[in-house]
């Protein structure tokens, strides 16, 4: 059961789930959405409303499966969305956490275990940056050209590994942070990591639920029709 449909007011969806703000931005909608329905906003902005709804419903609801994704979405459209997502990680979220983490360490003295947490964050951030670069260089071009062997499974595996690390990083902050530290900056860092972790996890769901079925369907049809 979808959370939102064409008749739902986008302003209400965003107010109920503020984590949708970067998602709708990636889909081409900016804040200042008025009191319009999702259907009418998509029509005005020339956005595929089915795609828009599938992405936000998959993002919000772990149990939601977009039933019409097989027929209506192109790989190009999904990959474009994922490219924007990756770009948001690398250009906005990770630099934002780096900046706050730097300030947190600078203002917290040395009697704490922030250095170890920072090392773990940097390891995870570098892995994300490297996955994004690999997606751009080889995974997305391979998906677009139909050269699909192994590439999607390998990609899904490394994304799951990052999900685990982000979860662990948050857990270590929440359960094992020790010593003296700047509380406001620590809150800012944890909140930003939390936001990245959630975004990353939910977008991986979009990869698994929308992109991978498209890829498999395409493989099947190549097999079926021999072209």
């Amino acid at each position, binding site marked *: 059961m979808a959370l939102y449909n064409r008749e739902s007011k986008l302003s209400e969806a965003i107010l109920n789930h503020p984590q949708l703000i970067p998602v709708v931005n990636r889909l081409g909608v900016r804040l200042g959405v008025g009191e319009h329905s999702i259907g009418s906003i998509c029509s005005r902005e020339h956005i595929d409303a089915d795609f828009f709804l599938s992405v936000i419903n998959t993002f919000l609801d772990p149990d939601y499966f977009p039933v019409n994704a097989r027929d209506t979405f192109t790989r190009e459209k999904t990959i474009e969305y994922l490219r924007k997502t990756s770009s948001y990680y690398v250009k906005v979220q990770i630099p934002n956490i780096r900046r706050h983490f730097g300030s947190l360490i600078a203002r917290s003295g040395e009697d704490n*275990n922030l250095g*170890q*947490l920072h*090392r*773990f964050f940097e*390891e*995870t951030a570098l892995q994300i940056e490297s996955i994004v670069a690999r997606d751009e260089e080889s995974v997305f071009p391979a998906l677009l050209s139909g050269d699909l062997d192994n590439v999607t499974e390998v990609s899904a595996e490394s994304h799951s*590994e990052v999900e*685990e*690390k982000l*979860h*662990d*990083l948050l*857990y*270590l902050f929440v*359960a*094992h942070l*020790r010593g003296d530290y700047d509380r406001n900056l620590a809150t800012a860092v944890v909140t930003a990591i939390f936001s990245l972790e959630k975004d990353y996890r939910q977008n991986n769901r979009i990869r698994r639920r929308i992109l991978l079925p498209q890829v498999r369907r395409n493989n099947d049809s190549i097999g079926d029709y021999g072209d």
Partner: protein
Amino acid sequence: MGTDKGIAVIGLPTLTAIGVKSMVVSEHDIRVVCYATYDDFRSFEEGADGFVVTPEVFVGNLDYFMPRRQKTLLYGNFQGMAGQEGERVIFPADDEAVIGEKLTSLIEGIAKDGVEPGELSAREKEVLRLLVAGKINKEIADKLCISINTVITHRKNITAKTGIKSVSGLSIYALMNGIS
């Protein structure tokens, strides 16, 4: 902590009791004491955290064992007992791996009662040290002279207790908690 007193093996034939003790201490960081009779066991004040006993010992001392039945394994031949009930019984014909799993399950049950969330046992800390040193399950099993299944069980317990899933996260946890 729940495993301080260890396991009491009561009433089993001497060689069988020695076999149980040997299997437990080779895989787990827990004490095992063998007694020929229930009276021998009771003549020591300290008691035990878990038990492996014959049905005769169990039935002859129901007042003591009924409240402790979740922490007791029976050793003997029982007709028609299988599934859930069978897990609480070591049959003489069970193969070594099955007996090992039943003993591990008993010890884990005891450990859950006594260990604070997040507190790793000495054995789990050893597994964690080897894990963060980059060893794979097989290497850890060889190094600690335990089975791969036991290593996997320890790893599951480490993740359950610490809340941390990745090896990188566990490395940081180990550093933060002086386990290295």
